[in-house]
């Protein structure tokens, strides 16, 4: 087990290295000069070149990369060209908001969809089952942009029970969390339902029933554990993806998270900031994946002995 974890951690570092190289490369290959964008429209080439020199953009790409990574390893993620502030500070300002939104979306959708899916699987063919399938279909079909704006108009403008934007209150969290979490809830419902049906049709369930174990215990002990295996993977991945910035949701609800910061940094070709965000997000991603894998081994005894 320990060997497995150590191997996985080493792999994490390899992935982070790969991400840093690829993101740096793509960013620099894309047309667009940050110095030009930082100066007034119509500035002379000479002024732009002077700024490039000052920002160190004229050095060869490989050198820029090495200089950046040398700082990054020490914990210095450089300064944003646009904001002229340390990138780590800018990211730290935004992480709590993204974390709160992501957690609310993920846990909210789990709380709703897991029981829904399981009950639908147990009570196949009933109204609950139909509702669950409909929910799963709509949840994955609805565009978050459309859904978000629609909810604002219904719950904020028409009914006046929820704020249309903002950060800091639970009311303000509800709509963004629903918008973000709905596709995930839909997916989890389907997986939970399918998994439940699968497990309940297994032979060993028949054996357990014969032993006299009650339905409730069967569901909570056997069905739940088995269903959680694929769901953990999906949820873990989604959590990590959301941490990368739920850009659309953040934009619609003016949620001050990392997604918006990343998008404007990319549009502005703010190389150091984009690189910093990539590294931070990738770190989250690999850490969460590692966590998921460890949880996985706890859930599935078959893996313990590998």
């Amino acid at each position, binding site marked *: 087990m320990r060997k497995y974890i150590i191997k996985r951690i080493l792999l994490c570092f390899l992935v982070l290295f790969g991400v840093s190289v690829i993101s740096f490369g793509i960013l620099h290959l*894309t*047309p*667009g*000069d*940050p110095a*030009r*964008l*930082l*100066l*007034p*429209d*119509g*500035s*002379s*080439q000479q*002024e*732009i070149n*002077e700024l490039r020199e*000052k920002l160190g953009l004229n050095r060869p790409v490989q050198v820029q990369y090495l200089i950046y990574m040398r700082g990054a390893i020490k914990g210095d993620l450089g300064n944003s060209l*646009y*904001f*002229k*502030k340390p990138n780590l500070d*800018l990211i730290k*300002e*935004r992480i709590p*908001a993204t974390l709160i939104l992501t957690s609310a979306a993920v846990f909210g959708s789990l709380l709703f969809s897991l029981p829904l899916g399981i009950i639908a699987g147990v009570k196949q063919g009933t109204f609950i089952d139909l509702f669950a399938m409909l929910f799963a279909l709509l949840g994955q079909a609805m565009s978050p942009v459309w859904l978000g*704006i629609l909810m*604002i*108009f219904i719950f*904020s*403008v028409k009914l*006046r029970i929820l*704020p*249309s*934007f*903002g*950060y800091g*209150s*639970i*009311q303000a969290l509800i709509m963004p969390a629903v918008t973000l979490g709905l596709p995930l809830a839909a997916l989890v419902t389907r997986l939970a339902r399918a998994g439940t049906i699968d497990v309940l049709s297994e032979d060993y369930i028949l054996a357990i029933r014969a032993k006299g174990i009650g339905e409730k215990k069967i569901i909570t002990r056997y069905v739940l554990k088995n269903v959680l295996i694929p769901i953990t993977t999906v949820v873990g991945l989604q959590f990590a993806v959301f941490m990368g910035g739920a850009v659309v949701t953040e*934009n*619609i*609800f*003016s949620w*001050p*998270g990392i997604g*918006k*910061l990343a998008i404007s940094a990319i*549009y*502005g*070709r703010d190389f150091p900031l984009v690189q910093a965000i990539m590294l931070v997000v990738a770190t989250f991603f690999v850490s969460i994946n590692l966590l998921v894998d460890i949880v996985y081994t706890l859930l599935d005894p078959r893996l313990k002995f590998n």
Partner: protein
Amino acid sequence: MKSIKLVIFLLTILWLLSSCLVGFAQEKVITFARPEDIQFMDPYDNINITNLIIDYLVYDRLVEYNPETGTGFVPALATEWSVSPDGTEYTFKLRQGVKFHNGEPFNAECVKVSLERFVNEKLRRGSDWETLKEVEIVDDYTVIVRYKQPSVLCLTTSIQAPMLPAKAFKEKGVALFDNPIGTGAFTFTEWKRGQHIICEKNPDYWGEPAYIDKFIYLPINEDSTRLAAVLTGEIDIADTMPPDQVPLAEAEPNVEIFRMLAWDQIYLGLKVDTPPFTDKKFRQAVTLALDRENIVKFILKGGRPSTGNIPQGVFAFDDSLTPVKRDVEKAKQLVKESIYDGREIRIIVPTGWYPKSKDVAQAIQAELMEVGINATLEILDGATFAEKRAAGNYDIYYTGASQPGDVDSFIWMRIHNDAMASGYINEELNKLIEDQRQEVDSEKRVEMLRKIENIVNTEVAPHAFVYQMEHLYFQRTGITGYRYYGNKCPDLRYVHYGE
């Protein structure tokens, strides 16, 4: 079950209470939302004009725009001023008894430290003050701003160069701008990036005190959300609203729409040094093909067709000019007579920079094709567009220009210095542009600027102007006291709910 019901009941009460408590605040607050966030608070190093909104509240400048007319200047921190006959020296008499938010007194030293930043540092607004030589302190309340060459732009550029506290700036340098200190009607209280900026009333303001206690700036990027927020009353003023949402705002009785003709114009830049643009006939055909009326009326539902490179509201604007009228037959004929060989004409268009740019570009493409020009569109993201444009990698580029009240920097950078690689070299035009920069006599300068405009219009080089933009604000009824300028950054010091 009973306990769950009780919990739900209590939670609901708590929720209702928390949303009610906000309404009990006694202080007068105005909330203002705009798509962009503030970049940083150093007005000297900032090209992001959104900052001006906060700058007006927190800082003061030597002069201000005349609030009645929007152009022309009135005293602020300078009580009187005069220009030397050769235009190289501006003498300012300063207002006495003014204090910064940290208690420091405002005097000539502050003017020197502030403006000489352009001499000592490399700043992004530096091109406005290229020819500044020094600031001489005559006495505590008199300064002379001295230029290396005659300048006509001292007052215009000083709008975006507010006065900084000399002592605090010498101590902290640019770190001062994390908590800006000015002499303004409001103090800069709190800044949570991406969330809000809060400014509070300065009780010791030298000028007329503000009506409200608190001003909150919110960056809300999504147009629909900004609209919803002003419809519910969560914000008081929504800035930069798209014309499509006007009907929704009109339907709400508590919201009114304020329209402002901005100093921004959209124009087409032509690659004059490459055939067929080398042929004047072809260029004329391009401008004759455009249906400016149509674009303004149906696509933008506001604004005005352009008459030249000087927008309405800006110094030297000529209201006797009329926009080029669309003439399809003549354009077709000119295309046939020109050297045009039927090749693809590429129009590059940036996304996200201007409202409805895609729609307008598509209309223009269709209009050009109607007269026999094989036009194609390349819709690019802003950064890529800027690269291609600077490299001259286009046949036509679609872009806008905002003026700070004077067309000088526009014609200097985009015609004289050809910053967008159009390849157009007109000696007469360039000489006029150089001369007008230094012409101190206002009337003579107007003549020169109009002559420049005329040459660009007749030659259709290097630009063909399309339309001047309208800027829309949606606000709650009863709001008054604001000053909106064509630079799209309102002066909100005196905004309040009027009786």
